[in-house]
């Protein structure tokens, strides 16, 4: 009976959320794509019927506007006392409520707009024209923009005297892109305007000095 109350409560909660948070239509979501198996079970969602799950999915889709809220999500603060009781949340154990709040917090945070990446290095001086590359600036922009239209590699050069890398090295390329060393490791050299290739691999970007064959993983920061 307690389980039945809980399920009715979840449905009621979904209805309250849908009613109290006016929301623009969003892409349909399925909590099964959003939660791990443990989160799913801990919130008791594995007992929901297909209809209940559909209703919950519709409401999860609609509460993304709450992402603007700061701090951990707490259903006790989101809902009024009456709503909380009407949703049956007062019948849940503290652990179940905590699990639901924990998941909701993580989910809402994931909905927040991606923070703008702030370069930690001085602005790059203007360069007359890319030295060797005509590849669009989208390459490597995984943290800055969509991957759409990315190329698999760029062939360009590093402006000026290049002394290698030492763990925190920033690479300013002739095509105005700025990349930073992403892994530990050191390599010393003494090259003027060396050619470099940055290639997109399975899980990262690899900078290669064709002359020496030396490589280092990098991330794009500008």
């Amino acid at each position, binding site marked *: 009976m307690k389980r039945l109350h809980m399920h009715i409560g979840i449905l009621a909660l979904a209805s309250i959320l849908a009613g109290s948070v006016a929301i623009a239509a969003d892409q349909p979501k*399925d*909590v*099964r*794509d*959003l*939660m*791990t*198996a*443990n*989160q*799913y*079970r801990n919130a008791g969602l594995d007992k929901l019927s297909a209809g209940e799950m559909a209703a919950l999915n519709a409401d999860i889709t609609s509460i993304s506007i709450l992402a603007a809220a700061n701090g951990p999500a707490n259903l006790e603060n989101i809902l009024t006392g009456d709503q909380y009781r009407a949703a049956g949340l007062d019948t849940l154990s503290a652990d179940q409520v905590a699990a639901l709040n924990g998941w909701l917090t993580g989910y809402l945070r994931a909905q927040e707009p991606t923070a703008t990446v702030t370069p930690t290095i001085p602005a790059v001086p203007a360069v007359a024209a890319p030295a060797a590359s005509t590849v669009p600036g989208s390459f490597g922009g*995984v*943290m800055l923009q969509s991957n759409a239209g990315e190329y698999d590699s760029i062939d360009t050069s590093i402006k000026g005297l290049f002394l290698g890398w030492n763990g925190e090295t920033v690479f300013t390329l002739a095509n105005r892109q700025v990349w930073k060393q*992403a*892994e530990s490791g050191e390599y010393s050299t003494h090259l003027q305007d060396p050619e470099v290739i940055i290639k997109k*691999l*399975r*899980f*990262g970007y*690899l900078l290669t000095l064709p002359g020496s064959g030396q490589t280092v*993983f990098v*991330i794009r920061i500008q």
Partner: protein
Amino acid sequence: MRAIRFICCLLIYVAAAAPAYADGPDGVLGVWTTADGKARVEIVKQGDIYGGSIVWLKEPVYPAGNKQGTPGQPKVDLNNPDKAQQSRPIMGLPLIQGFKYAGDDVWSDGTIYDPDSGKLYSCKLTLMMDGTLRVRGYVGISLFGRTEIWTRYASESTPTPAQQ
């Protein structure tokens, strides 16, 4: 008596029909198809450590006209930076290693090897409710990485390349 027999049959049926996948720390065990569908990886447990090796390849031998390996011969780890490892077969290669269960359907502190580049990445595995496995490979911190989605291979027996 009939009722008892019926209940016994029902229990056996339910047990047989239930998913064979374990919950919790061992939920990741089994055979998984990689995101590109070109390989299957069997994840096993040794002590408290989880790892997985390639047990099936869509293209187990070098195709005709291949310049990197010998056409018709089994693929080997040619891109490994360690020359001593370059002759080891891709079939059976330990692709992911060293994972510990971190709770909440996440296995962390492991590595994933990319035979196409010979590079090793840090890796985290997350078992999703939809049954997929999110494999996040990264260099440095997890933020700067990429996630692949592996799907569980449903067949009870993993076919050998000769069976494909």
